[in-house]
């Protein structure tokens, strides 16, 4: 049971990460379409936000898989 619960926990964190980063990607591309000259800044901000969200998701993965 512990093994399955851990896997479910991991799956939930990954689900959250996928949704979050998907939204970031969507808003970023939308913003770039509106204002192409700001593409560089938007891309940088997108990468940073994605890495931060991934950090939180992997925090969840580590906590559920290893504890």
């Amino acid at each position, binding site marked *: *049971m512990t*093994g399955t619960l851990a896997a479910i926990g991991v799956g939930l964190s990954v689900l959250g990460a996928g949704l979050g980063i998907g939204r970031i990607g969507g808003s970023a591309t939308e913003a770039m379409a509106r204002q192409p000259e700001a593409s560089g800044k938007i891309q940088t901000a997108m990468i940073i936000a994605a*890495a931060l969200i991934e*950090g*939180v998701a*992997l*925090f969840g*993965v*580590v906590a559920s*898989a290893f504890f």
Partner: protein
Amino acid sequence: MHRFLGGVIYGSMKISNRATKLLFTILAPALLSMSAFGQEHPQHDDHHGEATEQHVDDHANHDDHADHHGEADQEFDAVDMIMHHIQDAHEWHLVDIPQEDGTSKPVSIPLPVILYYNGQLDVFMSSAFHHGHSPVTKGDVTYIMDHGNIYVANAQGELEYDEEHHALNDKPLDLSITKNVAAMFLSILLLVWIFGSTAKNYKKTHVPRGMAKFMEPLVLFVRDDIARPNIEGDKYKRYLPFLLTIFFFIWINNLLGLIPVLAPNVTGNIAFTFVLAAFTLLIILFSGNKAYWGHILLPPVPWWLYIIMVPVEIIGIFTKPFALMIRLFANITAGHILILSLVSLIFIFKTAWMSLMSVPFMIFMFTLELLVAALQAYIFTLLAALFIGMAVEEHHGHGEEDVI
């Protein structure tokens, strides 16, 4: 303009070179001793996520694993293989060469084992352990290696196990040069060589030539896009050596972990990232000025919110470096596990045709890991600069919207 730029680069490179060497001579022993405690982890990983009804199987498997190197592999255990590649070890294991009689001979580089027990300091090569099969006697103390950890044998010369098959014996103080420590030395050598030749270039001319031509945009990137925007005024110069060091140290260790046969997993070791985060925390704590501590202990909110805000702020001081540690560790370890799992797929399905699907995925994952290597170094450095910037920020006037 060129002169100014060159002067700044020269100045920051000079600080960077010396401070880099200094920091490394501090980092290396710190990380070395930390990795001794980091080795506690392996046994917990083996058992923790496994259900109790699998416990019986576990014991059966355990005998297999204990004689793993001596006998033929009956079942391919993916978890065992992956854990073996991710964890630290006292020898640098390269390959296993299959012999005619079905067993496989491990080929590895032995590393020095340094143990301190009861006033006795023993130094010997890890080949004395014969890959964990034979105990080593030095004077009147016998050391036995079990699952990568070294224990002191009891009076009968054996290990005592508890119910979960963890050894109960004493452990000596393990200061060995393990695979991670040796890999750190390697990355230190690489960095000293790279930055040494970069700095030497600026002694002669402000125009970059050779290695400096490659490193200058990177160093300027750290200075102009990470340090300067986040740390106000001229204070960024004091913290630039630290930021440059962690950026390139993390990046190079991430890259080392991706080399196919060697693959030392340095940044995927939580003790290593713990030390990096600890350094960041120490720098933040020691460079916090009055405005910073004022905001933490007396935040600009109505007095009746203090009871919530102050504990949250104090806990926040520690959670930020903690998140830095976990983020780097989990990203790199997850990437390694993914790649190793894709390889294991071929062995689980026991067919070479699986490689048609597995290898392209693996190449894609490796490319992604290259990106992640640089990105995680950038994120760590960026957040460190952000936290340091918050700590040294001067007091600005507070409007209603300025609640930090």
